């Protein structure tokens, strides 16, 4: 089975990583960790800075790569399966769904809400949209911590 794990660095995506670490998998299951770099929306007052999003050198990509490497190391400490990482840019929902299609994912495992500090509904909507549009099965991991903010 091919398992896609979108990571955004939030508590909830940590819950999804824990789920992957603790649950049993088949030896031939493979995982793809993905972080989507989204252009900063102008409506929160910060202008879109194209340079930050240049693949390979942009600050956003460097940070994403660092995040993925940390999670990768974490997963590799318990799993011997094939695990790859990928950073992509664009709107999170569309990118995740497209990648699931391209990579032929059988399952997407993600947290129930996204990054903290923003509107909870807005970011939970990425999860909801992915769930609705995904071409494959989806596991939405809720943990006590990440659903407490109600």
């Amino acid at each position, binding site marked *: 089975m091919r398992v896609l794990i979108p990571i955004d660095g939030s508590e909830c995506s940590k819950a999804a990583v824990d*789920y992957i670490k*603790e649950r049993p998998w088949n030896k031939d299951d493979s995982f793809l960790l993905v972080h989507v770099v989204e252009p900063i929306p102008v409506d929160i007052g910060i202008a879109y800075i194209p340079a930050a999003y240049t693949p390979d050198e942009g600050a956003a990509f460097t940070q994403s790569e*660092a995040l993925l490497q*940390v*999670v990768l190391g974490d997963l590799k400490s318990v799993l011997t399966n094939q695990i790859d990482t990928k950073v992509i840019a664009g709107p999170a929902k569309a990118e995740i769904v497209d990648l699931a299609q391209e990579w032929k994912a059988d399952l997407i495992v993600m947290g129930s809400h996204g990054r903290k500090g923003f509107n909870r509904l807005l970011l939970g909507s990425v999860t909801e949209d992915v769930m609705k549009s995904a071409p494959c*099965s989806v596991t939405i991991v809720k*943990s006590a911590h990440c659903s407490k903010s109600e």
Partner: protein
Amino acid sequence: MLLNLLSAPKTNLRSLTNMKILISLDSSSSSQRAIDFALSRPWAEDDEFLIVSVVDVDRGDMSMASAMTSPNKTFNSEAERIVSEAKELLHNYLPQHKLETRCLSGPIKQAIIECAKNWSADLILLGSQGRQGLNRLVLGSIAEEVLRDAPCSVQIVRRKFSRREDQS
């Protein structure tokens, strides 16, 4: 900031190594996928399963005479058949695991959520459309509603899952 991810405290209420898994079934093909998924995956030794089917007496897609005259009996026996068949399949696949079945009644979403709370489920496993999925607009509405209100993790099983895919 992004690297704070790993320093976050571990806050799961229960262990992920012995989960209580609620499988919600009805007579639709998408719901069959949920049981097929369970039958094709590895599970932890201490996982427990509860297989449920909800009898929603408002259901209008079964216009048999018996359904009109004694709806509870007709729908209950259908629900019982669904859960007992599923239990048998699962028992053959996981002979050592604790398996229970339950027939619930009432509006589907509420019944599933209520049951998940009472049984302290860690994961709800369900097919993506349920039996109301007649057109794209209502398609999956039960799964979406369950996801929104669920007290635990939810897995939506979407397409036919086969062992063949595991080998590729």
